[in-house]
């Protein structure tokens, strides 16, 4: 491995009494040290989650709803594992992410195509800049907006729809960006070949460009999902949370991060935070992994 050779070379060179070499060695040493420090949190966090959470991860964790604080207290006092699971959180997360995707994917792809087709015009540049602004808005502000728009005007109360809307706004810029980038990478001659065969514009988009760029589009979607799955702040202002499994779009809904926050704030239920976080991490990392696999498959 190249880096081993580099390391070997550095060790042999070390024994040359040359100040510049020593300075260089020290410098490189610091770089390596700091890089290791940089990645240490990920190792520490994951090991902490696994060590504290694996006990709680059993089958019922996935199919039962969260216990109430009294049950939890009893279990703790008896030294047992807290009963129940996070089903309400799991279903809530899936439900809201699904709704958000339903809105974000078609709109995001269309806008991405718009930017791809009109990239140089002034209006398109403005749209692109606004998309970038949206991407930078803190998630709590988006939650606030969704509160005003959905909770107050549409569902008259905290709801899954409000939560999904906030997530939708978060996903949108990411999907727009990745769609535009994906399409830009498709060779122009593919588009021209379709054109030369007399294929109408919308068919060129849907039957030539989108299939050619499918892996890029899917990657963008998966990454944006992994981004919003762990969001807590906007959901606190919109979906609120719920003890039960809820699939009603107009009612408050739980989500995995929301449950984690509830557990964290309740001394009786605190032990549940580790397993829940572990599950969340597995989902996020899993999605990232799948995206990377899709990208590398495509590059073969």
């Amino acid at each position, binding site marked *: 491995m190249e*880096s081993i050779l580099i390391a070997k070379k550095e060790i042999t060179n070390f024994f040359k009494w040359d100040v510049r070499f020593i300075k260089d060695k020290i410098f490189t040493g610091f770089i390596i040290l700091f890089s290791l420090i*940089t990645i240490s*949190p990920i190792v520490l966090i994951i090991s902490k989650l696994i060590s504290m959470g694996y006990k709680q991860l059993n089958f019922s964790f996935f199919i039962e709803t969260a216990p109430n604080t009294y049950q939890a207290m009893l279990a703790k006092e008896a030294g047992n594992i807290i009963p129940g699971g996070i089903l309400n959180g799991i279903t809530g997360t899936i439900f809201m992410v699904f709704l958000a995707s339903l809105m974000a994917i078609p709109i995001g792809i269309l806008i991405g195509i718009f930017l791809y087709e009109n990239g140089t015009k002034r209006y398109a540049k403005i749209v692109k800049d606004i998309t970038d602004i949206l991407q*930078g808005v803190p998630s709590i502000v988006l939650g606030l907006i969704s509160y005003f728009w959905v909770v107050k005007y549409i569902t008259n109360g905290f709801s899954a729809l409000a939560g999904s809307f906030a997530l939708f706004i978060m996903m*949108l810029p990411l999907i727009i960006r990745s769609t535009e980038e994906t399409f830009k990478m498709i060779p122009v001659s593919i588009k021209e070949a379709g054109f030369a065969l007399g294929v109408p514009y*919308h068919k060129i988009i849907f039957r030539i460009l989108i299939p050619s760029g499918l892996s890029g589009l899917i990657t963008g979607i998966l990454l944006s999902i992994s981004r919003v799955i762990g969001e807590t702040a906007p959901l606190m202002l919109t979906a609120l949370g719920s003890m039960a499994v809820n699939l009603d779009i107009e009612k408050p809904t739980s989500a995995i991060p929301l449950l984690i*926050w509830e557990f964290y704030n309740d001394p009786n239920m605190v032990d549940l935070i580790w397993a829940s*976080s572990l599950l969340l*991490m597995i989902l996020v990392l899993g999605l*990232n992994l799948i995206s990377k696999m899709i990208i590398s498959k495509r590059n073969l």
Partner: protein
Amino acid sequence: MISGEKITKIILFLASLIVILIASGMVFSLMQGALPAFNEFGLKFIISTDWNPTEGKESYGALPFIVGTIATSIIALLICLPLAFSTSLFIGEIFRGTKLASFIGMMVDMLAGIPSIVYGLWGFYVLRPWIVAMGFNEQGYGVFTAGLILAIMVIPYATSISVEMIKMVQNDLKEAAYSLGATRKDVIFNVILPNARSGIFTSYILAFGRAVGETMAVTMLIGNSNIIPKSLFDTGNTMASLIANQFGEADGLKLSSLVAIALLLFVMTGFINGLGKMLIKKI
């Protein structure tokens, strides 16, 4: 009859309007919601340190939170700087192209994927005891702790952009330097940095912008006291964390004050990110 092509173009155009609608709607709603607070307190709101919700004597001000936000983000930036810098050199130059570099790169990507609340939990249960053990602060909360966790959270953003900038420095410049006998350190400081300088600088601006907007991890570690922190280990509060905490039973003037703070936050992040994007375009 309108051609199929025209219809498609119209649909695409309408889709693009959605983004504009959302963004402008956002600005409008924030301003609308913040109006009562500004009407009541005027622009003094921005520099007032009050936070008094008692009925009849309500008075709110944003200053402690603005200070808290900026303080934690600056601390985050300072801690992040050497770490992100080293890591980006590791991946982008010294071990560039090796499996080791992709491994480290992958780990950094994973750092970016960890949800804010998980960082908060870890910070609360692991970092905080360290801070307490080192005697910095009795409970472990505070501006420094929050800044520390923020640093870890924004390192991936600073690193990935910096890596791109470093890789963009042309090979022949580097080879020329090496052939003249320069050590790696020399090449880095004399060739790579001068060329990648503005890009790397921009990456830190963007990282700063991210830190400013973070909510959960900060709210779990900063101590949530509505005063201006006087020293590194004092507790305090940030704009985002305040909104998350106090939103629950807020209404009327208090809610409006929170929205006003959200508006300030929006403007701040918009400005910082806009600055960053502008600088990147100049490269």
